C-alpha cells in the first residue's frame, strides 16, 4: 500500500486549494494537493467571463486564465499534485485515507487544508428528475470546458449571478435562451450581468417559478407560472415554453463531507449556503492542525476563495515555523484587507456579516 508523508496536505485543487498551495509552498512548505477530478483548477476553467474587483483581484482576467496562472505557479513550486484521487476518510494524527488508481492508501500530514468547494442546490417540481433538467453549473461545464451543448432551447431558473452568467454563456455557445424565471420580485445577481441578456431581449420573468418539466423520456417543454408574495402559484398565469433544457440556478451549498469526516465542528449560516465548518479569521477549524478555505466554508466567489486559500496557506506555513511572527502578521493583514474589499456593496455586506457570525460561533466553541 502506497503511503505519503507531507508537511501540508490540501484537499481540493480549486481556486482556494491552489492559492493555499502557492502561498505555503513559496515559504518552503512541502505541499501535497489532491483532487478527485482529472484536472486541477476546480470550477475556474469554466469561468470564461472576466472577473471583477480591482487589479489586485485580477479584475479583467478571465477565470480560466487565472486557473492557468495558478497551475503554472504550483508546477514551478514543485507542489506534489495527485489528481483523480478521492479523500474518503480522515483518521487520527491527520491521516487522510485516499483512493487512487484503484488502490487505497493514505497521506499523513502535519497540517491539512480542506478546500472542497460547493455543490449546486436542486429544486423540486413536477418532472424535476427528467433528463434535460440540469444544474446551471453542470451546463456551464459542458458548454465551456467540454464544448458540447446539452440542449438548444433553454429555460434558466434563477437570476443570481450563476443564472445570469450561464444564460449569456449559453448564447455564446449557440443555444437559444427562451426565458429566465426568478421567484423574487427583483433580479438577484449583479445588473451588469443581467444587462447582457436583457439587452438581447431575453425575457426575465420576475415573481415566476417553474411548475413542471414536461416529457416522458426527457424534457420536451416547461410550464412556468406567476407566484404571489407567499410563493404560491397564481392560477391562470401558467404558460408553456418550448424548451429541451431546464437549468437550475438556485444557489449552492458548501461541500462539507471531508470537514465532517475530520470531525470539524459544523455550524449553520443561512446566508452562506447552510451547514459549514466553523472557523476563525485565520481559517483555522475546530480541529487541531486543520484549516478550511473557499466555498466549503461559505459560498462566495472564486476571488474570495483565493484570498481565503492564501490566508490558510500562510497560516499553515506559520504553524510549521516557516514564517516569523512579524512577517506573518503583515502578510495576513494584507490578505485580510484584500478580502474585505471583496466583501463590500449590497451583496458583500451580507457576506461579511455572515462571516463574522461564523467567527463568533467559532469563538463560542471555547
Amino acid at each position, binding site marked *: 500500500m502506497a503511503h505519503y508523508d507531507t508537511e501540508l496536505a490540501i484537499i481540493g485543487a480549486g481556486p482556494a486549494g491552489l492559492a493555499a498551495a502557492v502561498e505555503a509552498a513559496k515559504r518552503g512548505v512541502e505541499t501535497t494537493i489532491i483532487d478527485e477530478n482529472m484536472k486541477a483548477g476546480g470550477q475556474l476553467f469554466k469561468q470564461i467571463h472576466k472577473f471583477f474587483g480591482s487589479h489586485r483581484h485580477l479584475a479583467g482576467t478571465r477565470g480560466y486564465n487565472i486557473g492557468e496562472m495558478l497551475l503554472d505557479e504550483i508546477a514551478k513550486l514543485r507542489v506534489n499534485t495527485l489528481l483523480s484521487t478521492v479523500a474518503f476518510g480522515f483518521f487520527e494524527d491527520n491521516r487522510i485515507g485516499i483512493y487512487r488508481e484503484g488502490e487505497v492508501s493514505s497521506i499523513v500530514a502535519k497540517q491539512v487544508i480542506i478546500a472542497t468547494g460547493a455543490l449546486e442546490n436542486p429544486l423540486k417540481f413536477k418532472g424535476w428528475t427528467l*433528463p434535460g*433538467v440540469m444544474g446551471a453549473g453542470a451546463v456551464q461545464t459542458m458548454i465551456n470546458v467540454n*464544448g458540447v*451543448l446539452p440542449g438548444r432551447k433553454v429555460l434558466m431558473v434563477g437570476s443570481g449571478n450563476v443564472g445570469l452568467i450561464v444564460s449569456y454563456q449559453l448564447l455564446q455557445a449557440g443555444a437559444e435562451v427562451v426565458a429566465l424565471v426568478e421567484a423574487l420580485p427583483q433580479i438577484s445577481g449583479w445588473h451588469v450581468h443581467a444587462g447582457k441578456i436583457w439587452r438581447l431581449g431575453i425575457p426575465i420573468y420576475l415573481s415566476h417559478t417553474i411548475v413542471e418539466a414536461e416529457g416522458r423520456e426527457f424534457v420536451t417543454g416547461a410550464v412556468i407560472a406567476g407566484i404571489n408574495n407567499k410563493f404560491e402559484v397564481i392560477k391562470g398565469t401558467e404558460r408553456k415554453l418550448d424548451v429541451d433544457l431546464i437549468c437550475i440556478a438556485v444557489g449552492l451549498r458548501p461541500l462539507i463531507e471531508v470537514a465532517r469526516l475530520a470531525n470539524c465542528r459544523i455550524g449553520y449560516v443561512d446566508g452562506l449556503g447552510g451547514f459549514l465548518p466553523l472557523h476563525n479569521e485565520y481559517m483555522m477549524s475546530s480541529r487541531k492542525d486543520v484549516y478550511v478555505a473557499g466555498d466549503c466554508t461559505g459560498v462566495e466567489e472564486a476571488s474570495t476563495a483565493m484570498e481565503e486559500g492564501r490566508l490558510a496557506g500562510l497560516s499553515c506555513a506559520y504553524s510549521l515555523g516557516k514564517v516569523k511572527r512579524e512577517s506573518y502578521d503583515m502578510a495576513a493583514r494584507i490578505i485580510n484587507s484584500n478580502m474585505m474589499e471583496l466583501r463590500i456593496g449590497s451583496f458583500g455586506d451580507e457576506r461579511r456579516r455572515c462571516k463574522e457570525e461564523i467567527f463568533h460561533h467559532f469563538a463560542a466553541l471555547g
Partner: protein
Amino acid sequence: MQEGLRIEDHPILDFKKNRGKKVHITVNGKRMEAYEGEPIAAALVASGIKVFRRTPKLHMPRGLYCAIGRCTDCIMNVNGVPSIRTCVTPVEDGMIIKNQGI
C-alpha cells in the same frame, strides 16, 4: 452523432484546437466517435444521448445532472464495471459503455 451539438464556433473559446485524439467508443452496441480524455458524459451529450440510466425499481429515466461527480445520476456500465460516473471518467479508445438497471 447529432448535428451541431459540438460547439465549433465560439467568440472566446477554440475547442477544435484543444480536443484530444478522435477515437471510437461503443454505446449500447452502437459505435460512435468521441475524443480521448473528454468525460464519457460529454461524448454522450455530443451524440444526442439524454437517458443515461433507469432507476432500478420504477425504471424512470435519468440523465446528466451535476457533471461534477456528486449526484450519480449519470452512472453507467463501462467495460463491464457497473456504476461508473460518466461525468468524471475520461474516454479511452474502444470503451464499451452500456445502460445499467434496464
